[in-house]
């Protein structure tokens, strides 16, 4: 287990390096939210998901949706490292003609399960996928990653009520709770706490963890797989910009890419 955790920690660091590099290259994008999701995305692509990177349409694959679409650089990096496509492709992020669009696009990138970027929609799509699996008696699970700011959207709560009513226990949502949205702190803009309590009251099984503690993240996914009769939700408490000192909790890096100097500085920290 310790070796496995060390490997995953290395992978997470590599993914952070990829994120910083690709955003520096593209000159635009969302570093803060990409960095806060890294342990979650790493755990999913390198431990949790039953998937075949070389056969992204494999019918029995587990599905993962990045509902907070602006965090997709983390997903692209994890997918490249997992073998969905060449890591060379990462430097085409956001460039004309690239399969790596600024926000995830179904059909453009193999392995992307839904087009997102208009916040609040991924959980409903995940529900549709999970319902289809139930109708087909398929064994796959569906995972949806939301932002805490994204939970401002009413559709999230329509979806939350539906999934609980239909006892969709093959569905797991993760809220990357980094405490910020574009314009500032969530607690200043639209208070969502008690976040876990809200989901509990909607009928979900809820577990709250440190979203940067890989062991805790893996444990939470194991717990989620074991829940029966209810959908499961992991509130992952994270730090926006995690891993790069000058980006951590610095909301200036919500939607601004690092300069060349900042990339060099960040990569030195992530060496």
């Amino acid at each position, binding site marked *: 287990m310790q070796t496995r955790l060390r490997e995953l920690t290395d992978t997470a660091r590599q993914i952070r390096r990829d994120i910083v590099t690709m955003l520096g290259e593209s000159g635009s994008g969302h570093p803060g939210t990409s960095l806060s999701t890294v342990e979650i995305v790493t755990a999913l692509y390198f431990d949790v998901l039953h998937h075949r990177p070389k056969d992204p349409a494999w019918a029995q694959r587990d599905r993962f949706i990045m509902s907070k679409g602006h965090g997709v650089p983390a997903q692209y990096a994890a997918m490249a490292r997992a073998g969905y496509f060449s890591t060379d492709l990462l430097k085409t992020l956001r460039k004309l003609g690239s399969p790596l669009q600024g926000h995830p696009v*179904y059909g453009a990138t193999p392995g992307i399960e839904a087009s997102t*970027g*208009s916040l609040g*929609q991924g*959980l*409903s*799509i995940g529900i*549709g996928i999970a319902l289809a699996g139930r109708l*087909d008696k398929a064994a796959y699970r569906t995972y949806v990653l939301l932002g805490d700011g994204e939970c401002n959207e009413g559709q999230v709560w329509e*979806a939350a009520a539906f999934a609980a009513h239909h006892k969709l226990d093959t569905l797991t949502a993760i809220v990357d709770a980094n405490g910020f949205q574009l314009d500032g702190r969530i607690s200043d803009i639209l208070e969502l706490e008690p976040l876990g309590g809200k989901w509990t009251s909607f009928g979900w099984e809820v577990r709250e963890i440190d979203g940067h503690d890989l062991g805790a993240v893996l444990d939470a996914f194991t717990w989620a797989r074991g829940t029966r009769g209810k959908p499961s939700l992991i509130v992952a408490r994270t730090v926006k910009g995690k891993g790069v000192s000058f980006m951590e909790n610095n909301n200036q890096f919500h939607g601004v890419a690092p300069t060349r100097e900042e990339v060099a500085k960040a990569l030195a920290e992530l060496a």
Partner: protein
Amino acid sequence: MPLTKRLGPATRDAYGKVLAELGATRPEIVVLDADLAKSTRSDDFRKRFPDRFFNVGISEANLVGIAGGLAASGKVPFISSFACFLMCKGYDQLRMAIAYPRLNVKVVGSHGGISAGEDGASQMSIEDVALATSLPGFTVVVPADAPSAEALTRAMAAHPGPVYIRTGRPKAPIVHEKTEGLALGKGVLLRDGTDLALIANGLMVWEALEAADRLQADGVRAAVADLHTIKPLDEKMVADLARRCGAIVCAEEHQVWGGLGSAVARAVGESCPVPIGFVGIADTYAESGDPDALLRRYGLTADRIVEVARKTMQNKRQRQQARAMGG
């Protein structure tokens, strides 16, 4: 042959009936409604296939998103609600979860137009066609009567891509005695003529036929076409009618902004510019009332079509005279 008005079932009844039939041979069809199944008639499917029916509750955004996920997993969702709620409350979801990924979802808006009647403007849809045609890749259909609604529902089910179909609340006069050859994207020439073409869809097709009868008394031979599919538009038929008749009147139970008339005007502008008159809802909302009274109040009648036709014919003659004088 004189016209005889014969009321058939509402187009929503025809939809419900065919949907329930399709359920028997198409196990991949799933039906979702936002708590209006009895009104949209998706209830017919629920009764026969309860395991493949979901009332998602009064939550149109979630409804559309779930349909996207089902379609991405190989199901063929038919989703319904009142046209105004589905299109207006679910629009961004239609964009992100269905149109952008080009998924095979059938979107069914009932109670289209102002003939929804007594419930008033909040329940009426006068903008659904404009919204639906603005979604890239969508096919957009407004059937005129129950027989064509049945045929077009079957055609829609066989079509591999997103479709919006508008159905109506009131009983609809029969205009299609036979429905062989009815296909998405293909207009139906119900009556041929040489002086003017009346192009309509939905309940306005019957009104156009009546108007053509009255125009005959003026010595005007009017063609009548049912352009049930606004997108893709039967541009060949429209261009042909423009060329042969030299004047067009479009009639629809929808705002004049962004509906059938706008689509025809664009097509005619590109192929064979001729004078066009527009019968539709002006820049306004309607109100509560009996459907027939409302259609009269808002100018969606044969009388209004005749009036606009006369004006359009006058434009045509003036153009012809100007051309003759100009040599």
